[in-house]
């Protein structure tokens, strides 16, 4: 994406575009690698700290331009002092919230478990049901497709009785799926649980 282009180039492009007026050259725009916004808008996001670090590491010149002390002084523009203070306060609150949220998410990730369940279909046939991957920021649909490709079998996203989504893989694949989850998606062994459900379900949908 454009983010790879050098910051210096972007600045030069901006000047050229401004000079010519109706220029036909597309501008190169740098986008923040953390929050995906143009870096000048990072300060309004909730991940300012990370954004600043990212910019310093990837586009030092732009970082210098946006976060030098001079720029910070000019930042207030035409805002009244009162409005400025209020905005700062709101922003601080938002950032704190975001931090808390991230912490919570990390904790949740640690404690959540992916369940791999082997369910008996007929006498000797099984399906494998995987649930709980959403806690690890995986998308059911894509993972299901990957499983299907990897194991060359039917694999689909279904709704469980509780209304949550799960992946149903046709065939007894719980060990293979365990391995795949660990290798491809980097999920820790402790966060995966293998269960066997051998008793036949009554009625059978």
């Amino acid at each position, binding site marked *: 994406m454009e983010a790879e282009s050098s910051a210096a180039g972007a600045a030069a492009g901006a000047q050229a575009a401004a000079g010519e007026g109706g220029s036909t050259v597309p*501008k190169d725009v740098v986008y923040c690698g953390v929050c*995906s916004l143009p870096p000048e808008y990072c300060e309004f996001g909730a991940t300012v700290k990370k954004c600043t670090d990212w910019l310093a590491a990837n586009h030092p010149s732009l970082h210098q331009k946006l976060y030098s002390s001079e720029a910070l002084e000019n*930042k207030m*523009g*035409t*805002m009244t002092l009162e*409005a400025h203070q209020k905005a700062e306060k709101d922003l601080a609150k938002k950032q704190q919230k975001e931090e808390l949220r991230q912490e919570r998410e990390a904790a949740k990730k640690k404690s959540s478990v992916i369940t791999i369940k082997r369910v008996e279909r007929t006498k000797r046939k099984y399906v494998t049901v995987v649930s709980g991957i959403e806690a690890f920021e995986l998308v059911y649909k894509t993972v299901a497709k990957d499983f299907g490709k990897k194991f060359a079998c039917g694999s689909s996203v279904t709704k469980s009785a509780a209304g949550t989504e799960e992946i149903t893989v046709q065939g007894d694949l719980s060990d293979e799926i365990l391995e795949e989850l660990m290798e491809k998606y980097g999920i820790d062994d402790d966060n995966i649980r293998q269960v066997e459900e051998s008793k036949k379900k009554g009625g059978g949908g």
Partner: protein
Amino acid sequence: MFKKPVSSSGKTKIKSSVQRNIRQKICEQFPLLEPVIEDVLPKKAQLDLIKAPEKISLYALDNQVLFFQHHNDAIMPHLRVVHKYPECFPTVQVDRGAIRFILGGAQLMCPGLTSPGAKLPPSEGNLPEGTVVAINAEGKEHACMVGVLKMSTEDIKTLNKGNGVENCHYLGDGLWKMDSE
């Protein structure tokens, strides 16, 4: 429009005749874009239509949304397009205080457009109601929002009250995030 993440139900290829129409419509709507339309939307390119909820159509090229449209309303550019060709769209500027509300998805109120930090086109360049505009921000290089004027820029100046621009697409909304993923 895109406060929530966009859930698309697949994409389809657009017929070339329909694509021609879209292209023409874009040129009519944004006359300034016409000289560069070949770069934005090459004649030979195959556009994709992504249907989003609430009758919103997204027009994408190579998996990147370029324009979007609600039902049969005006076609609006994606902010990435606006960033690349800032001179090609009618622009108004808001003061610094309004930025954080815009990024939160709020509608744009008139006072944010008339205060000292803001800029509206001069009287002779009056933009009528319903015009699609890019919203710049005080002290910023890039636009932060795309919207539709709820009243003409002259009315905004005189009335200076109420909702001035409808917020259709802003930095960090569902549409923006959909692409950057």
